[in-house]
């Protein structure tokens, strides 16, 4: 029974691990923190798994638990000198795919996202993942109207960073 549950869980997570990696990408700046957060998300998912019922999709459920871990449960470890910019390891933009101006813009946007607070990061993440306002409001626990208002504010904030 337990073995079966373990297997089922790990299989599901293996398939959907991108969600967690993307959250780590938004919330952390270096490889070590990325791994830390990913591990904590995995632990929290596993702890919550017995309560997961099949009525929702694993991925939908995972968005919520993983985001909650990043925003609320995860304790950032103080790290010494960050010798390597995470972007250069994993986000390497293939130069030929973009013209210089676009590339520059995207770089600026990622920098801008790093400056946002935890809640705003969550909103941007959910926007990038094409989540609708109902899902966003349920995940964060705010009303749909307020999710919409706040989302527009964050978008404006990002736009003004690009075009001051």
């Amino acid at each position, binding site marked *: 029974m337990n073995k079966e549950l*373990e297997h089922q869980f*790990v299989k599901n997570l293996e398939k959907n691990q*991108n969600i967690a990696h*993307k959250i780590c990408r938004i919330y952390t700046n270096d490889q070590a923190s990325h791994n830390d957060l990913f591990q904590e998300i995995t632990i929290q998912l596993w*702890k919550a798994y017995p309560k997961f019922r099949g009525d929702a999709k694993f991925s939908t459920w995972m968005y919520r638990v993983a985001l909650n871990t990043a925003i*609320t*449960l995860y304790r950032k470890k103080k790290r010494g000198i960050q010798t390597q910019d995470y972007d250069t390891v994993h986000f390497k933009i293939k130069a030929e795919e973009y013209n210089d101006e676009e590339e520059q813009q995207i770089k600026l946007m*990622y920098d801008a996202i790093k400056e946002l607070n935890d809640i705003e990061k969550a909103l941007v993440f959910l926007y990038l993942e094409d989540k609708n306002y109902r899902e966003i409001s349920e995940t964060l626990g705010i009303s749909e109207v307020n999710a919409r208002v706040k989302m527009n504010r964050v978008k404006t904030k990002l736009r003004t960073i690009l075009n001051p």
Partner: protein
Amino acid sequence: MDGLDLLKKDWKSREANLPRLSYDEIYNMIWKKSSSIVKWIFIISILEFLFWAILDIAVIDKNYWKEIEELELTEFTIVSNIIGYLITLIFIFQFYRNYRRINSTDSAAELMKNILKTRKTVKYYIAFILIGSAITGLISLYFIIDHHSATAEVTAATNYNFNTLAWIKLSFMIIIGLALLMGLIWLFYRLIYGILLRRLNRNYKELQKLDV
């Protein structure tokens, strides 16, 4: 193309570059220890309950009861202790219930609310301990002064006036000392939890700000 659309396009195109863990790597991870804030809050809270309970028991020895008896405070001490333990039990029960309610599948706002509630229970418990000890301390002090002046009158009647003044001074000093000590303990707690819960508080406020 809008900057945000560009970003979205880029975000999606990078999906291919994400790290990928194997089944075994994930399997090993689920048995690792969590370092979540909830775990720390739970451990620290239990230590707090234990600390005050042990302190309470450590103070009580044979001499303690002898002195209490001499001061005719037996009933008062027994009653105040029973009340104290009952309230502690209620606090522990409440704490456990709140702790059980913490669930990472709730919405972010709900989760934060539940964590803060758990923390608040312990905070109220500490406040109860501090205020409770202050009150019982003052009542005992009153009885001690009362007891002393009753016996002192007989032995040193001439010095009585001086003694009253001295007692007033002493009680005044004790009250100030008590207040200072409690203030320090309170500050200490604020500091620990201020640090531990800073991020959570900030995010919770941010969410609440969104929802007015």
